[in-house]
């Protein structure tokens, strides 16, 4: 284990905080993605289409 010196608490706090913020950001983006995909899937299942899809006959 490295010797972090007299300010070890501050160093550990900085790294822990950064890890937490980055993890929260990643989790939010991943969850948001699956939520949007789910809603889109639901809407498509109910036969709702966007105008651009209709034009191309999709």
């Amino acid at each position, binding site marked *: 284990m490295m010797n972090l010196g007299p300010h070890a608490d501050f160093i550990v706090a900085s790294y822990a*905080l950064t890890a937490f913020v980055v993890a929260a950001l990643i989790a939010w983006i991943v969850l948001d993605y699956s939520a949007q995909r789910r809603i889109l899937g639901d809407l498509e299942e109910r036969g709702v289409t966007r105008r651009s899809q209709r034009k191309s006959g999709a």
Partner: protein
Amino acid sequence: MPFLDFANPSRFLAFARRALPWLSGASLIAFALAIYLATAVPFALYEQSQTILIMFIHVPAAWLGMMGWALMSVSALGTLVWRHPLADVAAKATAPVGAAFTFICFTTGWLWGRASWAGGGNLPLEYMILDARLSSVLMLLIFYLVVIALVRAIDEPSRAARVAAIFTLVGVLILPIIKFSVDWQQGKYTLHQRESLIRADGPQLDMPILITLLVAALAFTLLFFTLHLAAMRNEILRRRVRSMRLMQARELAEASA
């Protein structure tokens, strides 16, 4: 023209699908390398001040927090002047990522300052060290939060985009203030050290520390763009959901009329 290609959201989604695995893989590798280098630096170089370990997070976070606002300013021009269809998607997706990095920069800077500027003592007030650099970075963080709040408060996306774009372009003034806050009246308003990397006489850092810092900066930059791309993809999907719901509502209204 790739720039014009990306104006098409479907093409952008296809690009994001291909690029995201590569970008996230590259970020992981860069982070692994940065952590290895940070622990491998001979500790004699830290000269009793191991708090320099905080720099490997603090400095890249500062660059990216400021770069985020600069990117949002370019996107703001894209919204207001060129009316690029994805400009405001890009701006909206940057705000939370930029805010997170600015928050990391601020809190690590505050912890670092507390560790090396404050002599000691246990008064809670001593935890409130706010010099010119810390205050201006806090202001940038507040600006990010204002943009996020503005975009959420206005329901119609194109109006929200215009309001946020104007605020972003006014707020860009904070960037030079942050940059020069350590040069004006050094010692009177700030305890922050001056620029030690980009200097006319070369970087003032020992080689192993400099290399570690650059690798850490690369890792955080890759992470930034990975998250930004993924957030843009979410925003495009969110807009599709919105337009489909509007379409559905219109059909229901027509059916009942």
